[in-house]
């Protein structure tokens, strides 16, 4: 009798493990219209309104939590900001000495005021309804999808700058790969120095600017924007962030540049999908 129970128990576990492995294999091998994706699509129609409701309900608590967390870091933040203000003052004074650089900054300011996108570009407002809970993926789910005209690879922005791109689209929701994801790469350029490279996320959530030649002169505090190079999915000039540090090892071909993202990913709530 006991032996039968043991067999039953092991059989159930084995079947469930095989079922999970089967689902996983199917998910990666099939196209976006395949069975597992369609099941996810259908189920998401039910789950999305629930997530939307709970995301709204939890928003005040999240804000409160962030406020408390900020309070703990306020003292060290204050010291760091004071130092940063001094550095920035010097940097701004230097920037403003040349007219050309000044014009670049004005152009950037214009872009930030909303003149980045061509008139033909269409925006779809969306709300973040879920976030990845694992450190291995930097993704969020938004409440617009195929039914709203959203397509894979559409850019996602908010008032601060580039949020990421659409990674997968379902009927009523989409997954956004954030700029900080370890598999996110964005064609970028530094203004005003015009150095071009790839803004890459990482598993730690930091953003770096890769493949910038040593010959390019990049300074701390300069702005990093999308380059809009031909073939890029992003239009030119969407703010990505500011250069935080620049370094180069002698043995390396390229500079090592870290970027502070323009977007506060912790506070992400309302975003806009840029329909191409």
């Amino acid at each position, binding site marked *: 009798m006991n032996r039968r129970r043991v067999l039953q128990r092991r059989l*159930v576990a084995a079947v469930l493990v095989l079922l999970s492995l089967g689902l996983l294999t199917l998910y990666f091998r099939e196209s976006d219209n395949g069975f597992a994706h369609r099941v996810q699509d259908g189920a998401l129609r039910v789950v999305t309104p629930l997530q939307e409701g709970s995301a709204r309900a939890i928003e005040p608590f999240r804000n409160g939590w962030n406020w408390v967390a900020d309070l703990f870091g306020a003292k060290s933040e204050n010291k760091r900001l004071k130092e940063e203000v001094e550095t920035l003052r010097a940097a701004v004074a230097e920037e403003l000495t040349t007219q050309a650089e000044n014009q670049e900054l004005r152009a950037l300011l214009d872009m930030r005021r909303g003149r980045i996108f061509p008139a033909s570009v269409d925006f779809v407002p969306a709300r973040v309804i879920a976030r990845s809970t694992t450190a291995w993926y930097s993704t969020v789910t938004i409440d617009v999808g195929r039914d709203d005209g959203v397509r894979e690879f559409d850019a996602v922005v908010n008032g601060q700058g580039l949020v990421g791109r659409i990674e997968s689209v379902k009927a009523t929701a989409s997954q956004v790969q954030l700029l900080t994801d370890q598999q996110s790469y964005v064609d970028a350029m530094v203004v005003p120095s015009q150095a071009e490279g790839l803004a890459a996320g990482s598993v*730690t959530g930091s953003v770096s600017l890769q493949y910038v030649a040593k010959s390019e002169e990049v300074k701390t505090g300069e702005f990093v924007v999308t380059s809009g190079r031909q073939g890029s999915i992003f239009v030119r000039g969407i703010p990505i962030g500011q250069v935080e540090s620049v370094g180069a090892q002698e043995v390396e071909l390229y500079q090592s540049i870290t970027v502070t993202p323009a977007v506060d990913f912790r506070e992400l709530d309302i975003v806009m999908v840029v329909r191409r």
Partner: protein
Amino acid sequence: MNVRPATSETATPSLPMGGELARLGALLFAALLLQTTVAPNIRILGSSPDFALIIVVCVALRRGAVVGAVFGFLTGVLVGVALLEPLGMSALVLVVVGYFAGRYAETADLSAPVAPLVGVFAATLLANILVVTLQYLLERQVPFGFWVGRVLLPSLVLNTLLAAVFYLLVRTVLKGKGVLRADQVA
């Protein structure tokens, strides 16, 4: 904590029916909501608590390996759907975790107050090893130092701290005795 010899077997509880099924359904719904809406908004030491895992382990500790594995599978599939993760990834991890947590309950003495904490601690360790292995197989960056310092240790601390509260809640929701060991049946 007295761990029974490996040769001893247990009285497998009968399959859940009626009210028990409804209570398990409610716990499943709670796990889904907490994991998809609350967990992403809580960051302590750079990590989010894994409510789904904690609830799966607590259910398995109360109801044994079979119910734990099935509950883990369903929770994993639903979390995968809601968070648009690759289907099957969370399910695989939670099936394994649910099964072994259930086996732990069926073979060890759970009367010690730290038993649920030990269960959740071990389950978190196992789940993290499984997840990092899957990430490696999927050719994603898996820096060892980052994994240990920023993922594993914070989640071990967070999940273990939350274990006591959730175990009490699950025990209250799932009425009746927990899983019985063979010697207790006799």
